[in-house]
């Protein structure tokens, strides 16, 4: 069977970064879920390294070589893990700009796990009011569990009222793994890929016929 490609996009800015740490934990959990079933290749895209390329793409309309490669990897992934720090009540500008320069059809049907980090748990719903609508617009399939890691979560095992971070990571990873491996729903169909306009050109007669009154 073909190797499954999981890409984790991290918009963390620090070095080291808790956002990157969360991305790695999620990627590791997804890999573990699929272990024994499918070979998994994990790639982490650090947006910090692409910050200037992303700004340049906004200005010029085309991606430089490194950004192009990252965008292609995201578009070709079987599953995407998207992790951002929460800044000013939403995803970071860098995170948004990266998804702004991706074709708006590139993520159609793609399984996506959304996650975020922040200093306090009070911002956790930014995942639901900012990230989830963004990926809904892109027609991605976002798994039900979104993972938020506040600073305190890194030192807590959860309590009676809420799962700990590790449990949330595992639940979200299981949901993504199920979608990626095609275990859910109708079973074996892989996630649909965005169509390539160069491979599926509409014959001109059809373009003309569509306009006939």
């Amino acid at each position, binding site marked *: 069977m073909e190797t499954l490609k999981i890409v984790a996009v991290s918009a963390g800015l620090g070095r080291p970064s808790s956002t990157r740490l969360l991305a790695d934990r999620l990627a590791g959990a997804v890999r573990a879920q699929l272990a024994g079933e499918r070979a998994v290749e994990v790639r982490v895209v650090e947006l910090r390294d692409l910050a200037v390329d992303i*700004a*340049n793409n*906004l*200005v*010029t*309309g*085309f991606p*430089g*070589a490194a950004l*192009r490669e990252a965008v292609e990897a995201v578009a070709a992934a079987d599953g995407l893990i998207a992790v951002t720090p929460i800044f000013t009540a939403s995803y970071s500008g860098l995170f948004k700009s990266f998804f702004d320069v991706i074709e708006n059809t590139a993520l159609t049907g793609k399984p996506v796990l959304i996650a975020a980090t922040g200093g306090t748990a009070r911002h956790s719903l930014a995942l639901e009011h900012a990230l989830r609508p963004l990926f809904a617009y892109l027609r991605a399939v976002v798994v039900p569990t979104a993972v938020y890691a506040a600073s305190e979560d890194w030192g807590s095992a959860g309590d009676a009222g809420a799962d700990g971070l590790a449990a949330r990571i595992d639940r979200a990873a299981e949901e993504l793994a199920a979608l990626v491996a095609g275990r859910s729903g109708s079973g074996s169909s892989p996630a649909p890929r965005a169509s390539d*306009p*160069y491979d599926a*050109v*509409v*014959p*001109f*007669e059809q*373009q*003309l016929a*569509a*306009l006939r*009154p």
Partner: protein
Amino acid sequence: MQFGIFTVGDVTTDPTTGRTPSEHERIKAMVAIALKAEEVGLDVFATGEHHNPPFVPSSPTTMLGYIAARTERLILSTATTLITTNDPVKIAEDYAMLQHLADGRVDLMMGRGNTGPVYPWFGQDIRQGIPLAVENYALLHRLWREDVVDWQGRFRTALQGFTSTPRPLDGVPPFVWHGSIRSPEIAEQAAYYGDGFFANNIFWPKEHFIRLIGLYRERFAHYGHGTPEQAIVGLGGQVFMRKNSQDAVREFRPYFDNAPVYGHGPSLEEFTAETPLTVGSPQQVIDRTLTFRESFGDYQRQLFLMDHAGLPLKTVLEQLDILGEEVVPVLRREFAARRPAGVPDGPTHAALVARRTAGTAGETPVPTGPAA
């Protein structure tokens, strides 16, 4: 192979002096640049069409008609003619008139335009950009080839018993290129009609255009106009030259850094590595331009953007001297030496007339419309 220049017609402040030319100065400069193009032995001058500041060329056939009267050999073209928001009937009339006045030295490049508000200003919907390009061009194609047209479509008033006048010179419509930077649909349209395809590759990396031109060539052959190698391809390019490349970089850098399109983004070095922009010696421009055929195959028309980023007219005219004297003669020789037999030359009115007279439609790749 044809070599020429194309101009956007922007009014841009010279960042080194802070001086902004008036619209009148810019319009006269465009004319001076066109006349210089003929003087230095270039084949083509193409003007943009825009309907918003800071651009001046809203009325291309007025400008090209004036240039036609003052030139002898230069092919007058557009880059681009807005097939989406112009009435195709008016395009048919205006450019047929220009074709007569210029004794056939006219072709056009169709484009959709990239300024959103132009669509509503001209009563159209930008979301219909591709369907407008498809329907309007289909009508234009008929108006130039059928004396009496009955037509009904989605985007303009129906026509009953309409004759577009004047009829094209010698019964041969102006050659048409379809310009696109990203739409496979337009490559398909150009291929369907056997028209030319102009890939304005000046801002984007070549990998993108290899696919787009490859699609056009393949579909050109699919529709029976010739082999993929015989498809009619045009490319853009932009250059700034001085005898020593260091001088070129030093002089051009402030223009690059402040240019309306790419300024304040990537560095000059990054941009020249990723796109066809070449800033250096004439030899560097020659070498870079010759690589285009390796990426895209032998092609028919090379247009350079020379009057960009607020460069003063005097500098642009110097650049045209270098282009005409030192670069294009070498490129003509080198491209000719590398061109395989059977690859057609750039389209001219005389060649289209000769082709029609010989009745060889379908045998040679000079386009005449969809193959039967």
